[in-house]
């Protein structure tokens, strides 16, 4: 670290400059463009040194992935350039120049839709919000959805059709395809294979069916590296048919998670978090708060929040499940005891489950084998939960076939030369196929391989044709949510590049005619919506959901012939060898978000690592093997070997090493390449989630990892205040502690009066699951730059709201606490008193405002901030060269230049707009009218914001709660942001280990 970070090679910089010559193409006509383009020359004229700022090193250009619009003029002392204004030629319908508009659409993950409202500023999608009317969102979103808008503007997206790496055109492609189709038509499509990701889109499904009807011998394969095979196989085993399972967590009072992470992953995670928090009683003592038991192999958001959590090897979960089933007197062959779980723990859990019959719930993890799912279904059935806390429906996906099998079949046929035309739509199978499937190998032998993708990635490299795909925000499509509800996805902007959607490509395949996605969609929905189509269509577009498309509940009957124990025989496979488990990466998921710098730099919820994945091990294991963080080890499993850096994680099951998928990309783009290691290289197709027999060898090498939090204990400081429901009932002050925010402390100063608005925030630690959605929503809203791995490693990350994670108790089974920390907006702000230039001052509404253009960068404010929420631009972090990225920026927020301090502003731009609208109407701002970005996105509604002078405001009510306390309140900073102490609901019968 002692050597200067700014002396690296130029090659990147050159590629970069070649790289971002485009992007201007998408400009319709808006006044901003004048400013942005004029801005570059302005910059160079003002600070010539900035001009070649970029030719420094790789990390520097990562700034590419973040914002800069309004730097101009931040430095005085020079003449302003002549700026241009470009008006519309023809004003669009209903647009008010300069005012943002919101459009309802959806983004998908693993095929499942998340309903969103996308903010469009003068034709530029800049921010994603949840759609309150959409069942999977209810107004909230998650990190991946938030980051999707950056994906749209990613300058590394593929932009042209290429054939064998040479730039080509759609025309050339369609003629080439046309020739191929003639042949195919002759042999009824024999040899035609289509490989897609999981499909829930009714239109796409219909197109595929039509295609298969047209070419009876053609085949459609589906593969997602993170899929629901186990869920569907589980229902097949339990009920004889593939079904989708829906949980009603709000109705459940006792929940048992069998290695399930319904809060952090899964097809309904945002909704699940909302429901769960509701059951927990958001913002106070619920009448009957739910209780969460978790069995987890590797810590997840769900296990971290659990009232009782045991760490167990994934392969042993089956035994635990069996044991529970046994205790419930189900006809199973169970071991007498489960290694790693105390019997009384299971017993207590079972008692609880029974106690809340019909309102309890057992959830099996998607990584668990079908048998465990079947067991869970059976247990739920036995507990009378079916129909109440768990319901079933026809599969939401178009085809619930086993995807692993489907991919293997395809590869077999390719090897057998039975495939002469392969169309790969989306996905990235060459990269993310299991190691033993070796999907990439056969491809070159296939006569015609076509790939439609957002990036020219590993798969494109092995296909003859690469076709640029449209981004979800660029094209017409539709998708189903976890409950089947359909959203019509409408484009926010015309395709930036020569992209086309899957619908359009399929249209070309069937008949070869070129049809717009819009027509395809309308044709399909014409018949579905039938009469009064136009009204249904526009309502659906406006609301973001097609009403009545949710799949109906299905009553199920359990099969009689359920096996009494898993395939591995009774007492499972509990050999004592190490277990390797694969997890989706919280940031890059299966690798498809690898080039998204917001996500790369977003600290992983539990490890707080950025920019890399790591081999997570339990402290005990690390001790045994004398491993330290950043030690590179060789993981050998079933004959495949991979080198990876180690990260020690409290709460990890001993004997388990978990690796997250999606890293080690080679053709992800300039951001994603060369980070982490590729866990797919170890992943076997027959055991895609965990397998035993892992060997670890210490190499003696080190690999630096960038984390944003180095200390994990609170050192006896009452930062996160916690109480059990029982304690709370005895003494409501128990949690918040004596130093309550509102205790008046004597002062010689005459306090300032805030008689207009007085903004304040309350953060409910009892609801925060630590998902980080707030952090990335803030980043998107406030043009927060990305600084890159090296800078993060130096403690220079820029996030305005961070989620602190503390551990309590033993390293083996710690209690985990999350604490989102934005600016506290202190009324006695220590930062302001020491600012020499009045750059950090208070306004009349009690906001602690940072005036960037007045800041000279003494950094005294940061030193004096006890919460360390201030962030400093040590370099010119904000990119001012890449048009497409500038277009993503929020025009309402100044882009900060090098050398100025910045921090959370309570989304002051939203307050300002709210104030202006209210003033124009001659009224006060209503409660809930101004919503901060972090508040809007929060799946559990842990964050409330509002006017403390409004007696009716929600935040006012929350601050009146006995749980309310001020972080470091004893410093008399009088923070406007306060916390609601965390209420846990442990089982009194169980002692904390």
């Amino acid at each position, binding site marked *: *670290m002692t050597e200067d970070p700014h002396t690296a090679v130029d090659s990147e910089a050159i590629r970069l400059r070649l790289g971002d010559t485009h992007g201007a193409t998408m400009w319709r006509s808006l006044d901003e463009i004048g400013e942005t383009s004029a801005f570059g020359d302005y910059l160079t004229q003002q600070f010539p040194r900035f001009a070649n700022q970029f030719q420094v090193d790789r990390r520097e250009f990562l700034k590419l992935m973040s914002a800069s619009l309004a730097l101009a003029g931040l430095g005085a002392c020079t003449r302003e350039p002549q700026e241009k204004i470009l008006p519309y030629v023809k004003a669009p319908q209903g647009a008010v120049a300069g005012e943002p508009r919101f459009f309802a659409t959806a983004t998908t993950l693993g095929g499942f839709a998340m309903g969103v409202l996308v903010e469009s500023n003068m034709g530029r999608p800049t921010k994603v919000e949840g759609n309150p009317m959409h069942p999977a969102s209810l107004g909230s979103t998650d990190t991946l959805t938030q980051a999707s808008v950056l994906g749209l503007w990613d300058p590394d997206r593929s932009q042209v059709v290429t054939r064998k790496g040479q730039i080509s055109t759609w025309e050339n492609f369609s003629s080439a395809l046309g020739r191929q189709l003639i042949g195919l038509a002759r042999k009824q499509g024999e040899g035609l294979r289509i490989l897609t990701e999981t499909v829930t889109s009714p239109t796409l499904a219909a197109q595929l069916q039509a295609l298969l009807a047209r070419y009876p011998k053609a085949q459609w394969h589906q593969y997602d590296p993170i899929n629901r095979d186990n869920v569907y196989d589980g229902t097949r085993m339990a009920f004889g048919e593939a079904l989708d399972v829906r949980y009603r967590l709000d109705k459940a009072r006792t929940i048992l998670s069998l290695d399930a992470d319904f809060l952090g992953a899964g097809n309904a995670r945002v909704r699940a978090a909302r429901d769960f928090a509701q059951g927990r009683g958001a913002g106070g003592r619920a009448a009957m708060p739910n209780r969460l038991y978790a069995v987890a192999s590797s810590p997840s958001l769900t296990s971290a929040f659990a009232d009782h959590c045991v760490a167990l090897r994934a392969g042993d979960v089956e035994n635990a499940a069996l044991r529970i089933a046994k205790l419930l007197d189900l006809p199973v062959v169970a071991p007498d005891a489960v290694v790693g779980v105390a019997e009384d723990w299971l017993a207590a859990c079972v008692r609880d489950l029974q106690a809340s019959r019909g309102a309890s719930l057992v959830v099996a993890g998607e990584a668990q084998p079908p048998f465990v799912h079947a067991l869970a279904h059976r247990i739920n059935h036995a507990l009378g939960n079916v129909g109440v806390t768990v319901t079933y429906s026809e599969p939401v996906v178009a085809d619930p076939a086993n995807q692993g099998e489907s991919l293997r079949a395809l590869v077999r046929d390719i090897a057998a030369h039975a495939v002469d035309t392969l169309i790969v739509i989306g996905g990235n199978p060459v990269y993310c196929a299991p190691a033993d499937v070796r999907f990439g190998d056969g491809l070159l032998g296939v006569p015609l391989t076509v790939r439609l993708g957002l990036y020219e990635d590993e798969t494109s490299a092995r296909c003859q044709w690469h076709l640029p795909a449209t981004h979800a925000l660029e094209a017409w499509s539709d998708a189903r949510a976890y409950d089947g509800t359909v959203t019509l996805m409408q484009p926010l902007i015309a395709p930036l590049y020569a992209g086309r959607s899957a619908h359009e490509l399929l249209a070309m395949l069937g008949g070869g005619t070129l049809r717009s996605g819009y027509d395809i969609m309308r044709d399909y929905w014409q018949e579905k919506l039938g009469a009064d189509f136009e009204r249904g269509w526009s309502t659906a577009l406006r609301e973001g959901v097609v009403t009545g498309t949710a799949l109906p509940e299905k009553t199920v009957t359990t099969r009689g012939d359920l096996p009494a124990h898993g395939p591995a025989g009774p007492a499972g496979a509990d050999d004592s060898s190490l277990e390797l488990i694969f997890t989706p990466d919280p940031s890059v998921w299966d690798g498809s978000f690898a080039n998204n710098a917001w996500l790369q730099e977003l600290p992983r919820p539990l490890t707080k690592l950025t920019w890399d994945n790591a081999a997570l091990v339990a402290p005990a294991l690390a001790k045994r093997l004398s491993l330290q963080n950043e030690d590179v080890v060789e993981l050998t499993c079933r004959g495949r070997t991979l080198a990876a850096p180690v990260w020690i994680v409290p709460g990890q099951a001993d004997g388990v090493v978990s690796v997250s998928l999606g890293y080690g990309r080679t053709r992800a783009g300039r951001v994603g390449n060369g980070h982490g290691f590729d866990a797919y290289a170890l992943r076997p197709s027959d055991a895609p989630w965990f397998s035993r027999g892992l060997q670890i060898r210490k190499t003696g090498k080190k690999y630096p990892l960038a984390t944003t939090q180095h200390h994990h204990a609170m050192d006896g400081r009452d930062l996160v205040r916690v109480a059990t429901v029982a304690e709370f009932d005895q003494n409501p002050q128990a949690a918040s502690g004596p130093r309550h925010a509102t205790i008046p402390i004597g002062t010689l100063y005459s306090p300032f009066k805030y008689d207009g608005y007085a903004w304040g925030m309350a953060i409910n630690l009892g609801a925060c699951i630590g998902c980080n959605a707030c952090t990335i929503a803030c980043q998107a809203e406030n043009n927060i730059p990305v600084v890159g791995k090296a800078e993060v490693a130096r403690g220079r990350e820029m996030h305005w709201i961070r989620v602190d994670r*503390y551990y309590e108790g033993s390293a083996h089974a710690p209690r985990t606490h999350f604490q989102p920390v934005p600016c506290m907006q202190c009324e006695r702000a220590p930062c302001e008193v020491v600012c020499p230039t009045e750059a950090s001052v208070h306004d009349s509404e009690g906001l602690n405002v940072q005036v960037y253009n007045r800041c000279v960068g003494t950094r005294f404010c940061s030193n004096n901030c006890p919460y360390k929420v201030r962030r400093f631009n040590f370099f010119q972090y904000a990119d001012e060269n890449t048009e497409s990225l500038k277009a993503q920026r929020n025009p309402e927020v100044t882009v900060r230049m090098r050398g100025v301090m910045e921090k959370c502003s309570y989304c002051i731009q939203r307050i300002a707009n709210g104030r202006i609208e209210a003033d124009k109407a001659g009224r006060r701002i209503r409660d809930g009218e101004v919503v901060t970005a972090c508040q809007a996105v929060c799946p559990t509604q842990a964050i409330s914001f509002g006017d403390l002078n409004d007696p009716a405001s929600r935040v006012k009510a929350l601050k009146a709660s006995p749980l309310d306390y001020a972080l470091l309140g004893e410093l008399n900073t009088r923070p406007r942001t306060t916390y609601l102490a965390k209420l846990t609901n442990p089982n009194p019968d169980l002692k904390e280990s």
Partner: protein
Amino acid sequence: MSPAISTPANDINESRLQVLKGAYSYASISDKISDIVLTRPTHWGWVAAFSLCTALTLLFVVAMAYLFYKGVGIWGIDIPVAWAFAITNFVWWVGIGHAGTFISAFLLLLRQKWRTSINRFAEAMTIFAVAMAGIMPILHLGRPWFFYWLAPYPNIMNLWPQWRSPLVWDIFAIGTYIIVSILFWYMGLIPDLATLRDRAESRVKQIVYGLGALGWRGEARQWRRFDTAYLLLAGLATPLVISVHSVVSFDFSIGNTPGWHSTIFPPYFVAGALFSGFAMALTISIPLRAIFGLKDFITERHLDNIAKIMLVCGLIVAYSYVVEIFMAFYSGDEFEKYMVLNRMRGPYAPIYWVVVLFNVVIPQSLWFKRVRLSVMTLFVLSIVVNIGMWLERFMIIVTSLHRDFLPSSWGMFYPTFWDWAILVGSLGAFGWLFLMFVRFLPAISISEMRKLVREKKEGEL
């Protein structure tokens, strides 16, 4: 010309402890001092030192240029440790300056004869040290080209400085300090410049020194007003020197960071300042008297007195360390307690213990006369104390910041090459200025030395 009586360094007789050795007349003493500037050929030692300092000064310039080009990110600073080397250098350099003012002003008020022969270069040391100090806060700004926003001036933004910020106080304190020091120093120079003007052979020197002398004639009334003004400046500089480092200490004690927020800081810092300042005075005067043969004027008596003052300051500093620890536990403040323990046991513990060794343990040797009279030992010891005091400033700033209130936000500071470049470069620039000074201006006040000669004649010494 002057019968310089040099005595062997080992025997301790009274003659060594005279303020002025040898038998000097007005003439001979005037000539001896002015010849250094006017006629004496350049000493090889001077040339060697000068070339080294020039090299370091160039490094300083390069480091600053790169800093302005790239931003403060080239340093090791981060969040939470947003201040490190630059501010450490600032505090340390200001401290160096204090000894000069103390010698030339405070000792003058106390009518200490021995100050006469050292106040000129001590005051010069002050000016150059404060100049170095003054650069640092500007360098450490995120947007240095706006440094003037800290000063009050009417502007189109209708904005003014935020007067509650210690950084604004700094502007006034440091500004005042350097101006007053320059006035005080230049005023003392006027009669000597007149001497040089009158003794210079070459026309150019006559004109240059003549301009500096402002036409000084040494007329009785001029002398009278001169004395009053000189005494007044001394009287003003004395409280000033106290206030300046108190204000500097406010940069920390106004803050709420554990390890900063403490009422003992002003005296603590002032004592520390004098401690390092006198150490620097030794570091400079010992080679100076050797190279320019000034052993008769800067005698063991001077070194001895300086050493005694160092001892006193060192004890006050030691006391402050103790009080800091005591208060941490007496207050019962968990953050303060942790801060102290972290200094002793945390990642920066080695620095803490070196500080204790260099600033508290080793200086105790000054109780012994042998040590105080052994020039070589003093020289080494002075350097030890200089390092110790720099490290103390570093310790106060960095170890307090790197682990404050929220464990989640704890971090580390690791200096980069450019951190070191700025530190070493500023040392070079300081040396460069000082060497220029001794080459072209009388390093010892001639007119005051004449007075000393007279007093010696009258047996007033």
